[in-house]
């Protein structure tokens, strides 16, 4: 499927979220000018796309142009998109192109929201995140952290890594105890335009024993040779995941 040139050439870059399997989650993308503007003359064009392993989108949904004051909730169940691979899911790309003005600087983005309700309860609500264009000063682009992973008999950390570039990304996970002891995975690849979804204790089997003295609580470092968009969430007992959040980069100034 060809990309419309108007989106490819826009200095407003898309932002991303996980496109989870519909058997797991009921997903609504909430598209609202209020999250990016206060001017009555603001106008946005919204386009959603789903990717699964290739730069060519599996589907595209052109929402059209919304003036300031109008909003849309796009429920993926309602627009008949094909399902992503199970259980990993795919990539949801949200273009929110502001038409009445250019971004400050050369590029910018307008983050939107994803409200995902678990079919068995739980779920997550999360903003879409760009791969470039953020204004916060990040010290390193090859490392993100999750303070407060949990791995115990009762609780599992579920990881979802989103690769939104057209090359495989090499990843290494390093879990650490509160005292600083570490255990890590061998390097592995996340394919281009793909989601990777695993339980942390499957990737680092020692982690339950490592975190025994800290109620299962530790931290995780995610090293990658290109920026990834990692999500994490917790499952308690046989319950569904509540709720996923994104990891944190290593920031520069305090």
């Amino acid at each position: 499927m060809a990309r419309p040139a108007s989106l490819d050439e826009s200095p407003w870059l898309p932002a991303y979220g996980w496109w989870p399997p519909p058997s797991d989650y009921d997903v609504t993308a909430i598209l609202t000018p209020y999250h990016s503007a206060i001017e009555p003359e603001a106008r946005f064009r919204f386009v959603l796309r789903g990717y699964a392993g290739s730069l060519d989108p599996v589907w595209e949904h052109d929402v059209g142009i919304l003036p300031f004051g109008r909003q849309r909730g796009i429920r993926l169940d309602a627009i008949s998109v094909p399902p992503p691979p199970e259980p990993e899911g795919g990539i949801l790309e949200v273009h929110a192109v502001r038409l009445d003005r250019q971004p400050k600087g050369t590029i910018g983005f307008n983050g939107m929201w994803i409200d995902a309700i678990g079919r068995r309860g739980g779920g997550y609500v999360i903003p879409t995140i760009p791969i470039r264009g953020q204004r916060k000063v990040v010290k390193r682009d090859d490392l993100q952290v999750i303070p407060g992973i949990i791995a115990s008999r009762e609780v599992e950390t579920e990881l979802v890594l989103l690769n939104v570039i057209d090359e495989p990304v090499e990843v290494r996970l390093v879990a650490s105890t509160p005292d600083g002891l570490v255990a890590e995975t061998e390097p592995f690849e996340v394919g281009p335009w793909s989601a990777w979804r695993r339980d942390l204790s499957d990737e680092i089997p020692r982690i339950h024993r490592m975190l025994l003295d800290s109620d299962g609580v530790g931290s995780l470092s995610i090293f990658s040779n290109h920026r990834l968009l990692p999500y994490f969430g917790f499952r308690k007992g046989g319950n569904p995941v509540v709720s996923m959040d994104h990891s944190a980069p290593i920031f520069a100034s305090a």
Partner: protein
Amino acid sequence: MASPPAVVCHCRRVPYETVRRAIESGRASSLADIQRETTACTRCFGCRFELQRMLEERLGDRYRPTEFVARVPGESSLLRRLAARVRGRSVLPRRMYMPALAGFRGRDVDTRVVLFNWAGGSADGTAVTVRADLLALDGTRRAVWEHSVPPGGSAAVGAGELLPDELEGGVGAFKLVLDAPELGSLRPYFHLVSPGGITSTHEKAGPADPSAIERRRPYHWVFPVGFSERQEEAYLFCTNTQARPMEGHELVWQDESEREERTRFPPLELDQSACIALHEHFPDLASGRFAGTVRLVPATHKVAGFILRYDDEGDRWRVQHL
């Protein structure tokens, strides 16, 4: 050995006794006087409610509270800029806010804050001391936790273990105060722990200088609501991170049909929080039949805002920052 004096200002380590003497000697009859005379309340401003209470107790009707706390009067901006240049960073510490639920509305829920001091893969990193103030919604400090996080290590603290007694309404705010040249990995995340699950997101920081006046924000704070087959309670948690009080704000629920409903947002001073049950003000929002947003108007303040959704059937929370 004598125990160390009880401290009212944890940033400057100013004992209660020093402030008491300043008031009783007549040298201090206002918050600004205390700031000048003792250096208390000149960094994170977290002790201002305790200092105001001390002034009220000692001075009675003679005490005239100021509208809001500011940096030390007379401290020139040039001096501040020079100090920042010498230190290579902002003079003020970073303030980071999170909701603290501990028995909220009689439910079995607690809040755990976790910090990670990534050390660059070596043991040669530096331990970093952080402080967490547990605040009631009205901004008064209920407990203080100070901890040194070792290089490469993590630290966690729960609201329930800090509290000497119950938090009023089972809800308050964590305020983390960090004095470090770089934020690095020290962005705290928190867990809401309930029988049905554990949910997590990260803090929201206040501006470097809470006295700075933000006239107009470029966007609204937005609480998003998607379609759902399940009904959930919805709470907006907000802390005012700026010295300028929030007054006259409203929350506006708007669905796709552009239908709007409004409710008043409570006035908030610096470090004061509100936990607003949106599903009670806007019943359509909780039905799952409508998608839309609740926005805070006018767009003027940098709040530390959070989305809290509660599924009563599963006794589990979903949380996210705004």
